[in-house]
């Protein structure tokens, strides 16, 4: 019983998350697709949590510890690099005072 409910609850979350992802993201204009790809790319760096969780559990031998440290490093690169690079890209879309002076009224 308990097993079934854990699995089915998680599957329900999985399906709902899929639909939310679909609805939220289908509204993004073409022009922002590269930053969006980069942003979602950063979000799946959340696998770093998996590495952090498993390394804390018992039963890890030396080899496991090595691959988990690599996994955590990989996940961290994915998260930190992903968000930073997306931020850099998006900063460029912000209107700059020197060039966008006469267009300000329209956008704000």
């Amino acid at each position: 019983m308990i097993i079934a409910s854990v699995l089915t609850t998680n599957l329900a979350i999985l399906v709902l998350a899929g639909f939310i992802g679909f609805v939220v993201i289908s509204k993004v204009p073409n022009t922002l697709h590269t930053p969006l790809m980069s942003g979602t790319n950063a979000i799946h760096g959340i696998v770093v949590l998996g590495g952090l969780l498993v390394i804390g559990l018992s039963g890890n031998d030396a080899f496991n510890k090595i691959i988990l440290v690599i996994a955590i490093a990989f996940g961290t690169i994915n998260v930190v690099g992903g968000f930073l690079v997306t931020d850099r890209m998006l900063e460029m879309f912000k209107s700059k005072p020197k060039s966008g002076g006469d267009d300000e009224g329209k956008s704000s």
Partner: protein
Amino acid sequence: MSLPLASSFLQDESFLDVLYIIAFALFIQGLRGLSGPTTAVRGNRIAAVGMAIAVIATLLNPSEGNWGLIVIGVVIGTAVGIPAARNVKMTAMPQMVALFNGVGGGAVFLIAWAEFRRHGSTYGAHTVHVSTGPFSSLTITGGAAPTYIAIFSVFAAIVGSVSFWGSNIAFGKLQEILPGRPITFGRAQQWVNLLLLVLALAAGIDLVAGAHSELVFVGMLICAALLGNAVVLPIGGADMPVVISMLNAFTGLSAAATGIALNNTALIVAGMIVGASGTILTNLMAVAMNRSIPSIIAGGFGGGGVTEGASGAGEHAGTVRSTTASDAAIQLAYANRVVIVPGYGMAVAQAQHAVRELTKELEKRQVEVSYAIHPVAGRMPGHMNVLLAEADVPYDQLKEMEEANPEFQRTDVSLVIGANDVTNPAAKNTPSSPIYGMPILEVSDSHSVIVIKRSMNPGFAGIENELYYDPKTEMLFGDAKSAVSEITAELANI
């Protein structure tokens, strides 16, 4: 429920679950923010805050340990990630995304591997290991076996490995470490892919059924790795956006599977949202290129139909007129309205700053300038926008295809810089053309067209562009950057 006295509320499971809920709510809110240019920066930062909360919640977990190793991993990751993200050129963005995606996939399969090794004989069928909450697991004797943990973990291992190797190949191709042209095994290609997939799945099923053999697990990882290589190697450099987007979706799905195996809601939600978004993006890109995802995966552009179309278009009897930078400058200087159509060639030549200079010069002469952006111009959707934004082009000068097309009729000069297939009228007029039906920028509607291009070589679709034979089109042959700079210099003399 009574808690041990030592544990504070900070380590209460429900509290940590609430932190996870806050984290994924922030992810969703952040992605919503990414839907507009004005809210996008904030959206990305909101998602980053969500990530920080999720990491803190995980570290508060009472069973957390091995702090030294965690610090080592995080420090290495930060030391590599920050400089890479800071220093990458905007034109190199696609390969950077591919690389970050790859390491994510790498983390997924390594975690799955570690889980397999940790579980030992309790992995797969007959296992009695049950996770009861995000942070605790207990072992009960007897009862039904949660085989699903092995199923999702094996899925994550296969998909993560495919994504890791595929992304690295994509990076290699875009960075031009590997040749950009398709590398195929010829006709055997699809059979090789199928065989590798079947082998990986067979090993996975064997593991789920209770084969406690590390040899089988490693064999599975190797098959998946070869599959990742075999799928991406045959794909031409220009098709990479679709592939990177697909691999991005794969990594997301594998993260979600890891979440189910580890019973972690934050992983499930975040991974699945990325899986869904990557799938949509992949589809959008494939539609914009008039291609189906299976045909891209089945092997490089240039299957049967395309060659046929190419030979047909090759018979074109029209002549090509070429022009000089000074003539082009005069034409532009006396136009009322100019539309710039940037493409892959502009990105390769890194000509965006030169283009911006040209625009400034034209604007001084009261010429109205805008940019028409095809959804798949460049190497990724929106890639042109990022490049032009880097060169300080105001966002509202960038017109999307739907907005730009009706405007061409009242445009004096269209300046096509390194764009090819996305301007080919054959997509509208020639039903036999392989790109027939692909949405294009209707450049040929404008009064005159200047095309800056290195040579008459066809674009990645491998077909002739009818636009170049149009009597109102003039070709300016040369590197995009130097050609644009020459025009700007000539403008100053007028």
